[in-house]
């Protein structure tokens, strides 16, 4: 075929080869930066390197991991923070979304916009602000607590409160995100359901539990899964707020992975941690899907 001009109109790669060309970049970057690392880090997790020599050692890294008290500590911290933070953000998100969707108020858009702002703020930026808010000397929060007669709290330097701090910051950061998703879910529920229930004399509270919650199930499941995955990846917040301390009280799995990988440069051990993380996320997602009873 003759191509007198190289205009885009004539640049024909043919319908058969089009997918090849259009998909090539995505496949290339996927192979290099996702597929290869997945395989490579699995292989690494079965190796150790000593004096520049790398050798396969079977499950040694995993055995070491399951005998490592710090790993259990990191696991425990991650779970505690996740188990408290996930319901907090979803319940608060559901509450604010329900209020916004009540039809009783104006300025819905203003509220939605405002509540969403923390979700566009970087985790680092948000953590840095909370570093100041939670300062023990005269951070705003301790100052306000002092006004109502509560002694200043060592937010970031006592093991218990350090976890609370991470959760507080996380709740602030993620509530609006969940609210926006839940609000969209609420708005897609058919009004007829509520009208029928009203005619049958069901109270608002009753309607909430027998219509809203069941109708929202897929949306809530999505929030639950996203939030669970997110809490297992918790890194930026403890890195900035507490650096994993005090005495490892806020060392999360990802913090521990980072320490081993990029402070001790034990890539093999860090890879084993990564794969345990992969396993946990897969397992939890599976369980949540099962419990959620989703058809997909």
């Amino acid at each position, binding site marked *: 075929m003759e191509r007198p001009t190289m205009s885009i109109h004539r640049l024909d790669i043919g319908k058969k080869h089009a997918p090849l060309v259009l998909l090539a970049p*995505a496949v290339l970057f996927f192979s290099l930066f*996702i597929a290869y690392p997945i395989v490579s880090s699995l292989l690494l997790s079965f190796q150790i390197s000593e004096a520049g020599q790398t050798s396969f050692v079977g499950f040694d890294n995993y055995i070491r991991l399951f005998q490592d008290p710090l790993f259990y500590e990191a696991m425990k911290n991650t779970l505690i923070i996740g188990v408290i933070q996930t319901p907090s953000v979803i319940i608060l998100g559901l509450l604010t979304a329900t209020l916004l969707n009540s039809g009783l*108020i104006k300025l819905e858009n203003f509220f939605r916009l405002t509540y969403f702002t923390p979700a566009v703020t970087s985790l680092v*930026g*948000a953590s840095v*602000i909370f*570093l100041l808010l939670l300062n023990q000397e005269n951070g705003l929060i301790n100052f306000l607590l002092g006004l109502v007669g509560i002694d200043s709290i060592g937010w970031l330097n006592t093991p218990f409160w350090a976890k609370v701090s991470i959760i507080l910051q996380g709740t602030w950061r993620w509530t609006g995100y969940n609210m926006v998703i839940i609000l969209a879910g609420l708005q897609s529920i058919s009004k007829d359901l509520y009208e029928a229930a009203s005619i049958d004399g069901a109270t608002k509270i009753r309607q909430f539990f027998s219509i809203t919650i069941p109708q929202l199930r897929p949306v809530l499941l*999505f929030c639950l899964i996203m939030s669970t995955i997110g809490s297992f990846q918790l*890194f930026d917040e403890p890195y900035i707020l507490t650096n994993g301390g005090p005495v490892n009280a806020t060392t999360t799995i990802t913090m521990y992975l980072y320490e081993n990988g990029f402070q001790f440069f034990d890539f093999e051990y860090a890879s084993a941690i990564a794969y345990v993380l992969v396993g946990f996320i897969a397992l939890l997602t599976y369980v949540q899907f099962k419990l959620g009873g989703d058809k997909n």
Partner: protein
Amino acid sequence: MRSSIMNKLIIYVLLLLGVLFTVAPFYWMVIGSTNPTDEILSYPPKFLPGDFIAENLKRLMGSVDIWKALLNSSIITITFTILAGIVSAAAGFTFAKYHFRGKKIIFAMFILSMMIPYQALVIPQFNLFANFGLLNTHIAVILPQLTYPFAIFLIMQNMKSIPDSLLESARIDGAGEIFIFVRIALPTMIPALAAVSIFLFTFQWNNFLWPLVSLITKDMYTLPVALATIANQDTIDYGQLMLGATISVIPIFIIFLFMQRYFVAGILGGAIKE
């Protein structure tokens, strides 16, 4: 009637309380960046903006080159968003509109990879870039997530709504496949692409773990990495830290203000889809 007014009042009070909790940290960030640290932490703290911003900026510049960090973040984020947007658009279109061997497998691999936490990839990626001598470059931060399966998925969902007949009639008129993609498919996916781009932009602007690992010298730092170094100093100067936070937050806020519906569409794409 009285009870409905009471209800309204209660809802407003609750929602405004929520607004207060949401906005207070940002307000405090502004207070912090315009006052000296000892006044921020004095008893009682200062509740109004001060005039110390120039001095805080001077101190901030003494710790990190914040304008260079802003520039690095901008270069990396804008380049990434454009490239990843193109990659996603092409791939999403292909998955939606072509039939070819291996399509199902490739698509399944993309979707499954969304389950893999990023942390599991970071060490091999580090090795890869180290081997090619590309650590501590903008390219190192831009490349690894150019294939962003979630973005491809969103575009694909959106592209399914274009009728095949539109593409077929263009073919009959003699249009090539590239022409069809650029001139017919792309314009129809502008809203979806905007949502995806905003999503990718926010992701990269706020990205932390990988830039922290792959950027080594201060002159290459992005804003989050620069902030982290100030926050990790033994005695934290909150004035400069808050000013740094303000500088890092303003660009994304401006974009959010003007393009808020795309932000929402971007995260909703994954949640509300039949």
